[in-house]
């Protein structure tokens, strides 16, 4: 439908939309007051996935299902999306900050010749214009930005926007337009899986535990992973710990690592260098444990304990376990 708010679906590659889509669709519904449509490019959708999009509030799902869409390649996806956008004239195109969409959405904006606001933490209508708020300069400032013309294209930071109130039984009309794939020139070679920690992905986790230089060595992260398993948290690290070679780079939180915005952040032996704060300061609740009472992280922490993390962590894991077993 012309003037709809589009939400580009991020899925788990198994046919189900990711949880962040509840946030994107929820925000689109608040802004659009109706006319929210999901656009799903996939090689494999499931009925359960389609049902989920409907319950989150998508009035319609544009399902572009084709084996040629996997694995993801921006050169293919951007063309497919731009073709549909040209026919349907959406008012806004919203995505989520994920590994695929951080590349796809800017490429789509360039194809459409419109502005892009990436990694937004707030969106609001100002009259008939959309205004986005996004952190800049290592999160030290917020920029309010707006578009010269539509469609307004933006990506949303995960865990920041309020999820949709799911409406059980509400269904989306599913449209399956013909997909003509632009030629792909990139050839897939292989996928190398990381050794799974069994813990949630850093950027998506609702709770994140982070270990800094105070962890003293790579062997000690096991105590954070133990806590992670108890409370369902991802375990990350500061740049100091990554640069020391204690953790692989994919676990780094901060300006040269991942930006996270969990409901709860727990930092152990993290000093709170600006570069780390840049990646986690939009966390809702921040807990810091550090021996050094002067550590800068205490300035932004909601709760702090000045103590040796090696005494606090086992005790805290025990208390969490006791609480969650109730």
């Amino acid at each position: 439908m012309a003037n709809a708010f589009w939400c580009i679906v991020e899925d788990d590659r198994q046919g189900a939309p990711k949880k962040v889509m509840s946030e994107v669709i929820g925000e689109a519904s608040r802004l659009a007051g109706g006319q929210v449509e999901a656009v799903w490019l996939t090689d494999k959708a499931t009925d359960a996935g389609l049902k989920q999009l409907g319950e989150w509030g998508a009035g319609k799902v544009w399902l572009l299902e084709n084996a040629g869409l996997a694995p993801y390649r921006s050169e293919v996806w951007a063309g497919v999306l731009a073709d549909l956008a040209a026919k349907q004239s959406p008012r806004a195109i919203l995505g989520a900050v994920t590994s695929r969409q951080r590349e796809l959405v800017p490429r789509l904006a360039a194809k459409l010749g419109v502005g892009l606001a990436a990694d937004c933490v707030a969106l609001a209508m100002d009259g008939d214009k959309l205004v986005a708020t996004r952190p800049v300069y290592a999160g030290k400032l917020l920029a309010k930005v707006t578009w010269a013309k539509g469609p307004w294209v933006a990506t949303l930071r995960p865990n920041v926007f309020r999820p949709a109130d799911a409406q059980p039984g509400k269904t989306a009309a599913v449209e399956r337009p013909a997909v003509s794939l632009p030629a792909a020139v990139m050839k897939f070679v292989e996928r190398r899986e990381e050794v799974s920690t069994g813990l949630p992905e850093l950027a998506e986790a609702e709770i994140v535990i982070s270990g800094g230089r105070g962890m003293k060595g790579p062997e000690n992260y096991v105590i954070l992973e133990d806590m992670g398993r108890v409370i369902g948290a991802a375990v990350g690290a500061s740049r100091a710990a990554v640069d020391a070679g204690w953790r692989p780079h994919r676990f780094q939180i901060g300006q040269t690592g991942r930006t996270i915005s969990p409901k709860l952040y727990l930092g152990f032996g993290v000093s709170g260098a600006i570069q780390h704060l840049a990646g986690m300061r939009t966390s809702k609740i921040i807990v810091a444990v550090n021996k050094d009472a002067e550590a800068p992280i205490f300035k932004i922490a909601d709760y702090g304990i000045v103590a040796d993390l090696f005494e606090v962590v086992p005790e805290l894991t025990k208390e969490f376990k006791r609480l969650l077993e109730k």
Partner: protein
Amino acid sequence: MKILVAIKQVPDTATQVKVGADPRVIDTASITWIVSPYDEFAVEEALRIKEKRGQGEVVAVSLGPDRVKEALRSCLAMGCDRALHLNDAVWNGADTLATARALAAVAKQEQPQLVLCGRQAIDDDMGAVTAQLAELLGWPCAYWIMEEAVDADGKTVRAARQVEGGLEVFDLPLPAVLAAQKGLNEPRYPTLKGIMGAKKKEIRDVKASDLGIGAEPPQLSVIGLEALPPRPPGRIIQGDVPTAVKELVRSLREDAKAI
């Protein structure tokens, strides 16, 4: 093989950043400027490709005001052969698309086999220019690359991109555009010889008209910058460790409802 590396000059992370008299831009009075850290990975990788092949040219390009020459000079000191400075008032307030258009015009003139960029510049953190440049050129693109290898005859590049849960490896026919992620390499420090040599290397000023680009309003513009709202004051929980931990868990559960 010619490689184009697009870099951006940004405030040093540790620099204090304040909103300027014009609230759409920062006060640049006491800023220390650096080459954006991810762009250094891109420069390093370009130099390594050239060194490995034993021939080629690495051209650094950057868009911005006069001060940007300093950032280009550091790239030359690292080992880039020459630099292009897109320096024109037309680009004041350029958004990612306008920047990508300028870089695409440069790429059309220079005809590199490979364009390398950093995954994002650490000032406005959009992370968009690489993909937009690829789109405007109609070239393949890989984001957040952790490894790359150009094949012996310079026809394709094999790149491993970081995604949730692993790496995805692709062969991209050249020319192509890659965005460097941390972990790709360890950037070198310029040597004294490099720094001295950089003074003799060319930094050419490029105007929009040289690229056939006219003035056009940005598609995305900044309405205003503002300081972060202060976080509510925090609380240091006192007492011995078992007591403090119990109080922390109680607060997280009952007050913050975070667990």
